[in-house]
C-alpha cells in the first residue's frame, strides 16, 4: 500500500536543538493513534536551510510548510491536516503578515536558490539508504565502476570546472590527476575534510547530516579513479549528529555491498573510516589534518610536496572538503557540460552559504556562483533584521574580510571576492548592521585566529599576538595614529611569511576593515569614541532627565546597583560602579538611556 501523505520533520542540528526530535516522536504517536501509520509516513530528514523559522515540518503532497512547530502542535497537525485535509493556518510560514505562504515554492527564501549539494537535504531520510538510491544515488558510482575509465572521470571533472569548496578554490580535477599519475605507490588514500571550523559556518555539517551517502559515494568514485582502497573522513567530535548519520550510512552501504570488498561485484575494494578531530581550527588545513589522522599533533608542514603526491603516511592522497565531494556524484551523473553551464566562467556550479548575523532569515542557502551579495542578503535573507541599516557583510570567516554596501552588486565567485579583499572561504556569511562596531568585530576574528594558531611558525604566533595587542589598545581608547600603519605592516609580513593559510589569512579581517572603515578606526583613536557604542572603555551610559519618568525598571535590572533614584524621580547612574553591560538600555521603554 502506498503512502498518501508524507510528514517531513527537519532533523538538522539547529532544529533538533529546538525539540525537533520530540516533534518527530509526537507526530509518530499521533499518526499511530489515528491508525494511519500504514498511510502516512513520518520522516526525519536533513536541514531545510530555513533555520530562522525552525523547527520546520513539511507535509506532502500539499507541500505545506509549517514553521516554529512545537511538540504539542503534533496532535493538531495530524487531526486537521492529515485526517481532515485542512491546513493548520496558524503554523504556516507567513512572511508579509498579510498573505499566508503555504507552499515551499511560494517562499522567497527558496526562489533564488539552486540546490546541487543540498539536493537531498530536507527531502530524504538520511538514515535510509533506499531513499538516497531512489534519488539516483549510487548511479554515478555504477558509471564509474562499469562504464568510465579513470581518465574519463577526471576529464569530466575538468569539463565541469569544479573548484575546491573548502576555501582556496583549487581545481578538483588537478588534485585527482596528480594522485592518479603517481605510478609507483603501493597505497593511496582518499580523505574528506569535514573539520568545518569557521565561526558561524555549518554548511558541511548540514550536508553530512542531511545526505551522508553523497559523500560516501563520491569518495568511492575518487578511490576507483585514482586507485585508492582506503578513505578517511576527518570530522570534529563536536558534530555528534553528523557522525552518527555517517556511521549509519556507512553500515548500510557496507550491508548493500556499496562499500567494502568487491563493490557491486566489480572486483573493486574501498572502505572508509571516521577519524574524530578535537576541534582545532588549524586541522582544517590539509597538512595539519593529515598529521592529526596519523595521530601526530595537528600542525601544518610546508608545501610542496602537496598531499596529492605525498600525503597521509607519505602516500599520495586526494583530500577534498565535504561540499566538493557532494558535487561529484551529480557531475558524473549529469555530465561536466551540464555543471559548467551553472555559475560563472571562472567558477562553475553553486556555493552553499551559512547566512547568519543581523539578517531576517538566517539559514543555509545554495546559490549559483555569480549571484550577487545583494540578492543573497535582501532577496533570500529578507534584509536586515529590525529595520536597521546595513553596514557590511563578512565572508570567509577569520580568513576573510568585509564587503561594504557599494560592492553588494558584485557577482560573487572565487575571483571577485578576492579582488574585494575578502575570500569565498568555506561559506560563512555574517551580516553586520549599524550597531556593530567594526573594530570590535575585527578583534573577535583576530582573537579567534590567535587562539587557534598552532604556534609552530613565528610570523603567525608573534604577529597575531602583536596585532591583537594593538587592536586591544585601540578599543580601550589608547590607540595612536601610527598603530594603523603598524598593523598594516605586521599584517603584510604575516601574509608573506606564515607557514600555512591560517597565518597567511589571519590579518585579512584587519587589512580589509582598515581599508573600508578607516574613519571608524580614527574615531576610536582620535576622538576616543566608538560610533556603534560597542567598545566598553569608550562609552558611558547616561540617563536623560527629560525622558526619565522614574519607573525604577532600570534600577531593578542593574546587576551592580549602579542606578539610584526615588520612584517618579529622575534616576542617576553611578559611573564608577557601572560595568556597561547595557541592561538598563535594553530595559528602558522610554528611550531615556543614552550611550555616549
Amino acid at each position, binding site marked *: 500500500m*502506498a503512502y498518501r501523505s*508524507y510528514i517531513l520533520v527537519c532533523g538538522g542540528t539547529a532544529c533538533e536543538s529546538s525539540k525537533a526530535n520530540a516533534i518527530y516522536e509526537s507526530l509518530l504517536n499521533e499518526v499511530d493513534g489515528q491508525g494511519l501509520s500504514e*498511510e502516512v509516513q513520518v520522516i526525519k530528514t536533513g536541514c531545510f536551510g530555513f533555520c530562522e523559522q525552525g523547527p520546520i515540518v513539511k507535509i506532502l*503532497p500539499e507541500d505545506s510548510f509549517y514553521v516554529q512547530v512545537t511538540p504539542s502542535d503534533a496532535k493538531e497537525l495530524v487531526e486537521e491536516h492529515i485526517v*481532515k485535509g485542512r491546513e493548520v493556518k496558524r503554523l504556516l510560514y507567513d512572511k508579509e503578515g498579510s498573505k499566508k505562504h503555504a507552499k515551499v515554492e511560494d517562499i522567497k527564501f527558496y526562489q533564488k536558490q539552486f540546490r546541487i549539494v543540498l539536493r537531498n537535504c530536507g527531502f530524504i531520510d538520511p538514515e535510509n539508504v533506499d531513499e538516497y*538510491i531512489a534519488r539516483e544515488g549510487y548511479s554515478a558510482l555504477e558509471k564509474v565502476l562499469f562504464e568510465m575509465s579513470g581518465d574519463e572521470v577526471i576529464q569530466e571533472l575538468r569539463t565541469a570546472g569544479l573548484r575546491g569548496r573548502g576555501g582556496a578554490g583549487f581545481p578538483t580535477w588537478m588534485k585527482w590527476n596528480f594522485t592518479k599519475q603517481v605510478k609507483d605507490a603501493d597505497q593511496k588514500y582518499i580523505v574528506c575534510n569535514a573539520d568545518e571550523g569557521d565561526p558561524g559556518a555549518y554548511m558541511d555539517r548540514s550536508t553530512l547530516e542531511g545526505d551522508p551517502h553523497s559523500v560516501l559515494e563520491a569518495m568511492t568514485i575518487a578511490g576507483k579513479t585514482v586507485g585508492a582502497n582506503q578513505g578517511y573522513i576527518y570530522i570534529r567530535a563536536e558534530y555528534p549528529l553528523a557522525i552518527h548519520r555517517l556511521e549509519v550510512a556507512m553500515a548500510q552501504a557496507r550491508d548493500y*555491498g556499496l562499500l567494502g570488498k*568487491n563493490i*557491486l561485484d566489480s572486483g573493486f575494494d574501498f572502505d572508509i573510516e571516521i577519524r574524530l578531530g578535537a576541534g582545532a581550527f588549524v586541522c582544517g588545513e590539509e597538512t595539519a589534518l593529515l598529521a592529526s589522522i596519523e595521530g601526530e599533533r595537528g600542525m601544518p608542514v610546508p608545501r610542496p610536496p602537496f598531499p596529492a603526491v605525498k600525503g597521509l603516511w607519505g602516500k599520495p592522497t586526494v583530500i577534498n572538503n565535504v561540499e566538493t565531494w557532494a558535487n561529484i556524484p551529480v557531475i558524473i551523473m549529469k555530465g561536466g557540460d551540464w555543471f559548467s553551464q551553472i555559475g560563472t566562467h571562472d567558477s562553475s556550479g553553486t556555493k552553499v552559504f551559512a547566512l547568519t548575523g543581523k539578517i531576517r532569515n538566517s539559514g543555509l542557502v545554495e546559490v549559483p556562483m555569480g549571484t550577487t551579495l545583494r540578492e543573497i542578503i535582501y532577496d533570500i535573507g529578507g534584509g536586515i533584521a529590525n529595520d536597521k541599516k546595513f553596514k557590511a557583510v563578512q565572508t570567509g570567516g577569520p580568513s576573510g574580510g568585509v564587503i561594504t554596501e557599494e560592492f553588494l552588486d558584485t557577482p560573487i565567485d572565487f575571483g571577485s571576492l578576492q579582488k574585494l579583499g575578502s575570500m569565498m572561504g568555506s561559506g560563512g556569511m555574517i551580516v553586520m548592521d549599524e550597531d556593530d562596531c567594526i573594530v570590535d568585530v575585527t578583534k573577535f576574528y583576530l582573537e579567534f585566529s590567535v587562539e587557534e594558531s598552532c604556534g609552530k611558525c613565528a610570523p603567525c604566533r608573534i604577529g597575531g599576538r602583536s596585532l591583537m595587542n594593538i587592536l586591544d589598545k585601540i578599543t580601550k581608547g589608547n590607540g595612536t595614529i601610527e598603530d594603523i600603519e603598524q598593523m598594516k605592516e605586521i599584517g603584510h609580513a604575516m601574509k608573506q611569511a606564515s607557514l600555512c593559510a591560517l597565518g597567511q589569512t589571519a590579518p585579512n579581517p584587519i587589512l580589509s576593515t582598515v581599508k573600508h572603515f578607516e574613519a571608524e578606526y580614527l574615531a576610536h583613536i582620535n576622538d576616543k569614541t566608538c560610533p556603534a557604542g560597542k567598545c566598553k572603555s569608550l562609552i558611558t551610559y547616561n540617563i536623560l532627565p527629560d525622558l526619565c519618568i522614574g519607573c525604577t525598571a532600570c534600577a531593578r535590572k542593574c546587576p551592580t546597583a549602579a542606578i539610584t533614584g526615588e520612584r517618579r524621580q529622575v534616576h542617576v547612574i553611578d559611573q564608577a560602579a557601572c560595568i556597561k553591560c547595557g541592561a538598563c538600555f535594553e530595559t528602558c521603554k522610554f528611550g531615556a538611556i543614552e550611550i555616549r
Partner: protein
Amino acid sequence: MAKMTLQELRKLRDSKKTEIQKRDLSGKETQIIVGMGTCGIAAGAKNVLDTFLTQLEIHNLNSVVVTQTGCMGLCYVEPTIEVIAPGMPSVIYGKVDAEVAKKIVEEHIIHKRMVSEHVFDRPSVDIIKDGGK
C-alpha cells in the same frame, strides 16, 4: 539485505523511485483532489483516496498527484473529487466510489475522456488565482 550486484541495485532503485517520486511535486501536471470534509469521509472518501493511490501505482502514473481538501460544498453527491488535467476542462466528479475512481483513472486520466455520468460541476472561480478581480 545481502550484498548487491549491479543488477540488484538497479532493480532496487527502480522499485524505490516510484515511491519517492510521489514526494516530488515538480513536473506533476495532473491533480486529483479528494474532498475529505466530514461529509466526504462519512460517504467513503478515504476508500476513494486509497483506490486512486493504488490505481496510479498499478498504471505507473508518476505525473499525477493526489491531494485532499475540505468539503467542496456538494454534500448531496459525496464523495466528491476534482480532477485538473492538461488539455481537459477541470471537473468535479460526484458519487465517486472505488469503481468510479478506477474508471476516472482509466478514462479521464489515461484516455482523456470524461466519465460523464459522474460529472457534477465545474470548479467555482478561484478569486485568489485571478488576482481577486
